[in-house]
């Protein structure tokens, strides 16, 4: 065994965060994960836009591309959250989180690193969704601030859902089963929302749910930020944006303490 008597170095939390973030991000460039995430947005765009474009023309005011792209961005973000859960669960089940716990690493550093990886995935997914949108005619019609607002809101939704996903992954014992179970709420929340068709196309008894569930509230806010060619989209008002932000705040308020509890309970 080599003599390794050098001083034990003092690890910096920032550097540890960076090294762990690279660990999450670097393989995604090589193993096709990034490519799959990007093609997912393209596949969603093609498979939803082409069949529904003519069908929905009667119910949706203005261009269907303009209507559809916000939900494409959200779908991409939902899938990022599922990847986040899978990653976190794999790290827990493989014992690597346990190992980090016995090393001079602050408990929040691995979480922060996984979240950086998640945000990077969300950003890529958002960029791809916007690119696909531009190809089918989606445009940002309002000023630059609203465009930035649109992107920030998608990223904020991504952050929140990935955080929840990371938490679910951390407490779950079976990554495969968990991913399968998570698909169900994601599909319901997207299908039974104003993502593909307006709320008044749903049966009356379902409409209150359709209008008020988080996906629809996110979509109202995103569509307001993107605007449209005519005047069919509502203006950006507190009434449009506040419910979306309230949903996000609510999710973080519930998930934050649960996360702290999950870390604490392992002690």
């Amino acid at each position, binding site marked *: 065994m080599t003599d390794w*008597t050098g001083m034990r170095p003092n690890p910096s939390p920032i550097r540890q965060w960076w090294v762990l973030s690279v660990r999450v991000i670097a393989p995604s460039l090589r193993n096709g994960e990034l490519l799959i995430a990007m093609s997912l947005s393209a596949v969603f765009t093609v498979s939803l836009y082409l069949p529904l474009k003519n069908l929905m023309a009667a119910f949706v005011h203005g261009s269907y591309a303009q209507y559809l792209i916000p939900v494409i961005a959200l779908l991409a973000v939902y899938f990022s959250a599922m990847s986040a859960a899978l990653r976190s669960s794999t790290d827990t089940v493989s014992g690597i989180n346990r190992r980090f716990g*016995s090393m001079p690493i602050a408990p929040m550093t691995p979480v922060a690193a996984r979240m950086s990886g998640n945000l990077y995935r969300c950003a890529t997914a958002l960029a791809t969704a916007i690119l696909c949108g531009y190809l089918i005619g989606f445009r940002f019609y309002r000023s630059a601030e609203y465009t930035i607002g649109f992107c920030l809101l998608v990223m904020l939704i991504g952050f929140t859902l990935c955080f929840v996903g990371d938490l679910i992954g951390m407490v779950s014992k079976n990554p495969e089963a968990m991913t399968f179970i998570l698909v169900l709420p994601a599909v319901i929340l997207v299908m039974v929302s104003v993502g593909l068709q307006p709320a008044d196309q749903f049966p009356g008894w379902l409409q209150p749910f359709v209008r008020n569930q988080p996906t629809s509230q996110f979509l109202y806010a995103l569509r307001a930020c993107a605007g449209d060619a005519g005047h069919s989209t509502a203006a950006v008002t507190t009434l449009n944006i506040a419910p979306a932000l309230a949903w996000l705040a609510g999710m973080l308020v519930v998930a934050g303490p649960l996360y702290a509890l999950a870390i604490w309970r392992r*002690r």
Partner: protein
Amino acid sequence: MPTSEKTVIVSGISKSFGDVAALRDISFEVSRGEVLGLLGPNGAGKTTMVDVLSTLTRPDRGHARVAGHDVVSHPARVRRSIMLTGQQVAVDNLLTGHQNLMLFGQLQGLTQAAACARAAELIREFDLEDAANRRVETYSGGMRRRIDIACGLVVRPEVAFLDEPTTGLDPLSRQSIWDLVGRFKDAGITTLLTTQYLQEADALSDRIIVIDRGVVIAEGTAEQLKERTGSRYCEIVPKDSKELPAMAEALSSLLPYEKPTLASDRIAIPAPDGANTLMEALRRLDVANIGVADVALRRPSLDDVFIALTKKPATRAAGGSAAEVMP
């Protein structure tokens, strides 16, 4: 070489999970450079003990110091002094062996250049040169274990916790891990090794603590534990098992106060004089004209000790292990 300086001090540690008492008032000490084998059956509390010492679990009662730091009041200092490998290999399967070593080196605060140099060193030492640039998910079980342990050595630990490091490995891979633990000892790293393999504890440890149902039930060197259970004995198998009673009769005077024990196809008699007893026994059987198929002078194995210690007297199988043969 072990010194008198104590690197691990465990004093009255108890830990419960709900109603289950995983550890009950455990105390022991490990000297610098010593290899301590923590031996026990499944569910004995070995991993909980390692978790407490590596700051992953807080004890309910008691105190523990590792490398001079209290595990409860200064966990961060303890974490800077230890390495832990758990029962499962905990490295990133998507990274190569070299990348994993780089990752752990940089997490421990090495610069990129230093981490790279150290990674190359460890890859050489752990005989992983051919696999260094392959993803760990393609490694064999033994190679995965080796990279797992190597990742714990990117900076020198004062205390190493190896939790069942050879579980599930083939004999050859197990031997290579044993060689590694031998080098820990040479490097003066205090090592706490948990295992359910007695042979492993026997081969690697300077001292063994036997733990069962959260309680220390025996402590000592392998030799001392064997002494506790009894001394040498002699095992004789007749050619014809029908001759067992005649054989017992012929040998009975070798042990005036006790009858030799009849196992299924063999007789075991205490051999206080070692080979002399064995020769005397053979001479008598020759005189009585009883054919012998097999004969052996044996020491009680640690298995015998282990079974004797961890089983309640009432549940011991009659005529089973050599432990029962002994006075």
